[in-house]
């Protein structure tokens, strides 16, 4: 017993300033909340920039409805788990934090799964095991550990909203491209008319890799061109 007692006191004060650098209870959040939201959609976009949550990104983006449903469910879980994690983080022992966070996430995923099954049974059936698989989405544990546990509830929720919107927008974009080319429809409504020959490849697994690959190549092209322009302007 005497051996285990000494470590906690130095650990606790060391974690307090490192864990919550800016947040003072009662004071307004130091960083602009909108910046936290915007960051998740653009510069730190979970799919297009950070490559987090790849499994749902590929597996469910074969129709736009599935993509939007998966994105919205993930947004809900991100906001809920972010809020709870930011509130309880300082009471959770360091050794069991990952397990605790994953249990909080799993609770919200179960909630989202039940809500979706009650409101949109068709989409819930189409997503199948990929709905409970949100638990294993690295994005959720990543945000809980890297951000929500270190800031106050307001910023944690803002970050959850931003990351969730960024995730939903990326999924919607990919699934819109895949459904449009692979089935000639959007949300199940026919767009190209009866003479369109569906490009079935796009709704099959390789089409998912290819769509994201081309999207990333396009993004890299834009970034590279912007960098070269800036270099030319500087020279």
């Amino acid at each position, binding site marked *: 017993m005497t051996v285990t007692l000494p470590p906690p006191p130095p650990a606790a004060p060391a974690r307090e300033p490192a864990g919550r650098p800016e947040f003072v209870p009662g004071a307004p959040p130091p960083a602009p909340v909108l910046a936290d939201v915007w960051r998740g959609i653009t510069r730190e976009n979970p799919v297009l920039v950070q490559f987090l949550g790849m499994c749902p990104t590929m597996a469910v983006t074969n129709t736009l409805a599935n993509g939007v449903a998966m994105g919205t469910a993930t947004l809900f879980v991100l906001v809920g788990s972010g809020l709870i994690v930011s509130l309880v983080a300082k009471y959770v022992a360091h050794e069991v934090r990952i397990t605790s966070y994953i249990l909080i996430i799993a609770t919200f995923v179960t909630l989202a799964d039940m809500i979706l099954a009650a409101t949109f049974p068709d989409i819930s059936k189409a997503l199948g095991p990929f709905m409970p698989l949100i638990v294993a989405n690295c994005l959720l544990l990543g945000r809980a550990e890297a951000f929500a546990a270190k800031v106050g509830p307001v910023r944690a929720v803002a970050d959850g909203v931003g990351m969730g919107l960024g995730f939903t927008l990326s999924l919607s974009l990919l699934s819109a491209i895949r459904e449009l080319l692979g089935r000639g429809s959007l949300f199940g409504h026919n767009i190209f008319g009866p003479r369109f020959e569906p490009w079935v490849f796009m709704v099959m*697994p390789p089409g998912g890799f290819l769509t994201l690959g081309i999207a990333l190549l396009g993004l890299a092209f834009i970034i590279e061109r912007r960098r070269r322009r800036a270099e030319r302007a500087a020279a």
Partner: protein
Amino acid sequence: MSNLAWIFVSTLLVNNFTLVMFLGLCSFFGVTAKIETAWRLGLANTFVLLLTAVGAWTLNTYVLTRTPFLRTIAFIVVVASGVQIVEMAVKKHFPVLFRQLGIYLPLITTNCAILGLALFQTSRHYNLVESLVFAIGAGLGLTLALSLMASIRERIEVADVPVVARRMGLVLVVASCLSMAFMGFAGMGSAP
């Protein structure tokens, strides 16, 4: 017996966990820079998959019969503790491998393939033997996909590709080609 053989071939090739079902993509893109780490992580995954299959089957048959809504939470606890056991075993018996795998060993917890196996074996109503065969097939399929990807990426490293394709874009297009190759196995029949 033919049923077991079919489950094995189906999860190994026709419905390969990574390239066709999109499970375990994080390690597929994250750990495939070197072939040695890739196949070793694949085998570590196989072991965790086996533990998970037994754990999930036991939970389903004896504990969660009346509370199916607790499945997600219960399974993730099984997975997390399974990973913990493997981590301790590897650290004690294979310290060199433990250092090589580093952060990716605990990260198996958030590998969708593990939780996915538990969920799929539940929704397909596999018995214990079928679950074990399913786990071996899935694990070897994962190892195969990781090794294939790693050997291709080692070649890409030394190739002269355009600046635009130096990052993940090209890797995803390569993955698409690999996945297309695996679609060829679909001719062997669809999943039971």
